[in-house]
């Protein structure tokens, strides 16, 4: 994720948030650190004042020490200058570090807040927002805010003070000269405003155009074989060329504008020198302008241009930060759709049955039903298999049971209690979910089995692993349970990952097992181990399994056949085969030749 994630689409929420509101929402975070901030500002002010002081000493060195041929005095002055310079640098170091520490602290608080909030949102939010976008929010948007904070503070306070200090000294030594020189300040300010107005939009455009270049490149590179088959290489090249040109045009404009702006501003530096020379000559008899003073003026003028460098860098930072702040604020105000009930009913485990009562559910909230009028019951201790073709609605049933979504119509009950009346955490703790492929988190094997749950200690982890026969291959690993899991779990085979997911389920000691069987096959040896482990996992436990294995459907108490969101058949395997309906056909297609076992049943 080092590449910047640029968004040119805004959600309705973001569009309506004014910058002020976004920033004031985040201001309280600074209040915590107000003493540190004040300390910083004091250091900053002192440092700035000192940095204006040593040019004065320099002037004295020239006017006094050198004029009076006092080398010893010169050395003293020079030493004093060095001490002040070093002192300033040291002070600036501490100020900078302090500022950075404050900025980091604020950002850490903000990031934790964001993460907390996002974690509490419902699965439907994650369906709508790709992970990349969320990472960009919590990562890059907070970063641009932090840069704004640490850099703008320096800019606003430090540089204003610097310029003010410089002009104060200049006024002190020659208010005639200084009043002429200060005319430049409003001129430059005006130039900055004009410049900003003309270029801000273009700055953003450059980023947009670059995003388009990236998008165009990606598109064509992904589909190059089609481009070649149709022999449309020239078309692809032309499209990329156009995108390149568009970005080039915007970028050239912006770059040249910046160059012209800067050089114009620096031209004024020469003008200021000229003013000092000409008017300094005119007025020196009136004001006793010495050569030392002239040197000092030159140095001061030249220091006063430092801030100009910084301003331009800040412009794009400020833009980015404002946009970032708005997005962060929008994210923090994202509502939860499945709130926990005010007065939750306690439920400590299944005693009787799970029931679906006329449940209708659509992922998109419209008439695109994933489940239609689903009504069924699973009694405690019974095992049920869900079968059907892909996209029929089987996984939906599991998601609804876990209350990852709420149905639009009907209700789901456990022991007669509507699951919406139970706290989500309490409800989910009674289930164990096993997906087609285990989802692995950064960490070691042990913590992936326990998922760092309290109450799942090493003994339980090892017992769970042993029961499902996963301990054998874990034992063969160099670091055993402490072996780090690589990204996407690529250091384990499919079969091993299945066993790990069983171990995870078992370790949490669930009341109810929810299992989505893998569709891909493994070698017969591993398959036997998996089947045996599954049997152990399921024994005596209420289970709902999206079945793809022959051994599973032969083992369960009930089978439900789901097609296009409807439950069309139910019964035991033998009953359904005898009925010679849809199930019978499905069985022959999906199960008969699976896993190297040819079924003779039915």
């Amino acid at each position, binding site marked *: 994720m080092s*590449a910047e994630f640029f968004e*040119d689409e805004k959600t309705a929420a973001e569009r309506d948030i004014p910058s002020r509101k976004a920033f004031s929402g985040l201001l309280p975070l600074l209040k915590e650190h107000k003493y540190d901030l004040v300390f910083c500002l004091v250091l900053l002010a002192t440092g700035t004042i000192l940095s204006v002081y*040593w040019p004065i000493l*320099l002037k004295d060195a020239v006017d006094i*020490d050198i004029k009076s*041929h006092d*080398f010893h005095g*010169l050395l003293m002055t020079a030493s004093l*200058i060095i001490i002040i*310079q070093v002192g300033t*640098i040291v002070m600036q*170091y501490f100020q900078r570090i302090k500022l*950075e520490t404050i900025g*980091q602290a604020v950002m*850490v608080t903000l*990031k934790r807040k964001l*993460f907390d909030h996002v*974690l509490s949102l419902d*699965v439907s939010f*994650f369906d709508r927002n790709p*992970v990349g976008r969320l990472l960009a929010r919590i*990562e890059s948007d907070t970063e641009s805010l932090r840069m704004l904070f640490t850099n703008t503070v320096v800019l606003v306070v430090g540089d204003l003070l610097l310029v003010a200090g410089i002009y104060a000294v200049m006024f002190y030594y020659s208010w005639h000269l200084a009043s002429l020189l200060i005319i430049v300040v409003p001129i430059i300010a005006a130039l900055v405003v004009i410049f900003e107005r003309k270029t801000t939009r273009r700055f953003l455009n450059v980023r947009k155009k*670059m995003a388009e270049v990236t*998008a165009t490149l*990606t*598109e064509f*590179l*992904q589909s*190059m*074989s*089609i481009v070649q*088959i149709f*022999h449309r290489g*020239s078309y*692809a090249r032309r499209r*990329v060329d156009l995108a390149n040109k568009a970005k*080039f045009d915007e970028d*050239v404009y912006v*770059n*040249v504008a910046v160059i012209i702006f800067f*050089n*114009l501003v620096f031209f004024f530096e*020469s*003008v200021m020198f000229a003013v000092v*020379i000409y008017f300094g*000559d005119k007025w020196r008899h009136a004001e006793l302008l010495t050569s030392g003073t002239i*040197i000092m003026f*030159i140095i001061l003028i030249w220091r006063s241009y430092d801030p100009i460098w910084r301003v331009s860098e800040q412009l794009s930072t400020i833009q980015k930060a404002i946009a970032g702040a708005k997005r962060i604020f929008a994210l923090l105000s994202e509502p939860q759709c499945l709130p926990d009930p005010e007065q939750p009913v306690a439920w400590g485990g299944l005693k009787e049955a799970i029931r679906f009562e006329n449940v209708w559910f659509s992922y998109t909230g419209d008439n695109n039903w994933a489940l239609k009028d689903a009504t069924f019951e699973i009694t405690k201790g019974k095992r049920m298999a869900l079968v059907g*073709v*892909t996209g029929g609605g089987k996984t939906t049933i599991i998601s609804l049971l*876990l209350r*990852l979504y709420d149905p639009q119509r009907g209700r789901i009950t456990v022991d007669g209690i509507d699951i919406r009346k139970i706290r989500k955490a309490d409800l989910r703790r009674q289930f164990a*979910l096993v997906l087609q492929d285990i989802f692995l988190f*950064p*960490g070691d094997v042990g913590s992936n089995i326990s998922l*760092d749950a309290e109450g799942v200690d090493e003994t339980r982890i090892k017992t769970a692993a042993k029961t499902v026969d996963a301990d054998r291959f874990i034992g063969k690993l160099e670091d055993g349970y402490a072996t780090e899991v690589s990204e996407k779990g690529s250091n384990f085979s499919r079969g091993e990952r299945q066993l790990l997911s069983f171990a995870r389920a078992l370790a*949490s000691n669930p009341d109810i097992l929810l299992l989505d069987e893998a569709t891909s096959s493994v070698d017969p040896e591993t398959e036997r181990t998996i089947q045996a482990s599954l049997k152990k996992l399921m024994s005596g436990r209420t289970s709902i399994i999206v079945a793809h294995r022959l051994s599973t459907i032969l083992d369960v108490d009930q089978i439900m056949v789901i*097609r296009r969101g409807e439950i069309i058949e139910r019964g035991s395997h033998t009953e359904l085969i005898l009925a010679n309906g*849809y199930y019978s*056909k499905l069985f022959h297609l999906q199960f008969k030749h699976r896993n190297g076992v040819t079924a003779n049943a039915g």
Partner: protein
Amino acid sequence: MLDKIKWFYRYYRRYRYVLAVLLILTPVQVAFQVSIPRLIGWSIDYFDKDTVPDDVVAVWLADIGASFGLGVAATLALTVVLFGGVSCLLYAFVQSHRAWMNLRLEWLFRQDAFDRTTDKGPNFFNKFRTGDLVTRMTDDVAEKLSWFACSGIFRLYEALLLVTFTLIMMATIDTRLMLWSVGPLPVLIVIFFISATVLDKRYEHLQKRISHFNDVMEACFSGIRVVKAYVREKAQKASFDEAVYDRRDAEIATVKAQTVVESMYFYIWQLGIVIVLVAGGYMAINADLSTGKLGAFVYYTVYLIFPMFDIGQFLVKSRQSAISINRLVELEEVHPMVVEGDSEGPNGSGGSGSPEDSNSPVQGGLVFDRVEFNFPGSPRKIIDTISFEIAPGQTIALVGRVGSGKTWLVNMVPRLVDPTGGTIKLDGRDLKEFQLEDLRRNIGYVPQEPALFSDTVRNNITFGRKEVDQALLDWAIEVAQLKDEIATFPDGLETAIGTRGMSISGGQKQRLALARALVGKPRILILDDCTSALDSSTETALWDRLHEVMPGMTALLITHRPDTLQKADQVIVLGEGKIVEQGKHDQLVKSDGEYARIYRRYQLAEEIGA
């Protein structure tokens, strides 16, 4: 090193004018810039002693000024403004050219890199993932290479000129003092090298922490279902906290190191001024040096220090750019798998087709003669000696399990890849004898994954082909069962689809891909399982229509539709790169072999609606 310069020169050659501007004007601009401290020095001396400084040029300037009726101070002031103005003007001119060149090079580097990929074969795209390619063409090109290619090199040039001219100026004032001013420079260079190592390490550490931080978040959000199902929110927060604190600490450590380095840099120029002050002051006290000259020296000291930044930058960035150049050159090292007119190539039959032949209409008769195919570097035969014939206008259905080689087989017809053994002939001529463009113009191909682009519906169908007229377009749309739907699109044919346009359904995408293939009125139609996303009624209507138009074309269909299989002139069953069975549907079913088994499964699947 030399080959890197050669690589750059390839591009620079086209822009001699810009190169000349940069090479010639830079020293001129620096000369003007470097004169200003001198002028200021004279002004200070004039202040001090009320007479024109005893410098040939100064006297000459004063005379010119006097002839215009201007006093000495006025002349000097005016000259400063003039020189300053010219310097800024020239600098703006030079910088603009540098910026323009940077951006133009960025455009060229990227365009060239992309252009080359349009010839590369599947082995290239297997080796380099799209994301990787895009990063090389954007990050590497824009961030690292293009800036370095022009600004990097010319700012170094500018910095060296500045240092040289400054030293010369200083030497003409006082050689000894010049040696004093140069004092801090070696220190700077040492600081630079030490800091580069320390900073590098801290940056690397920080990068790792940032990556870890992102990994934790990514894992948590991608696995949100598991997190919620197992009620692991607290544990995730703990992991997050650990990662965020680690990152904060690494960031602060980096800033500390950075600030130290920056402070040292800033300090050195201030120290330099003090050194000049003391040494020059000593000389001034002994009347060896005027105050004006001292002042000028102070100013020149600064001119010496800041170019060091640019020189340091150059050294750092040159390392990065070398790496980026390598990353681009790497792309050039994989050769295209298919080359135009390759009949002289390893598997060619020798002799190329004459121009008149390419104008005669293609009939569409294909002959596969002992065709073999394996990926470069892999011994596994994806296609293992396949031979069959298709008469013009026939419809052939190809079936077989995943991995049996069907897609690669049909991909050889438009020469996406070439057979590694045997030949494929079209109308009696080896495919390699055709001009690629002529060959492909006669083929309509619909892949499994539709592969459409962010453009209008019209442009997606015509795919930039100018020979497609409205009549053809309308016909293709009608056959692909899209006519009514396009009418409901907000801008009809001009509606934009893709990343910044309307999103369309999978079924609509497949039909668009079909229209795209048909609109060229191809003699050979290749369809690779292209109607999987359609609902059954649309699918049936589509195929009915297709079967009406197909007799005019030779069709190669990879399909599992029972209806299509029945209607095909021939069915070829592939298994592990070989032909397992071949013949008409009825005959194959009767012989109750592999095909019969496969066919029964297809029937079942259709009934179930899988």
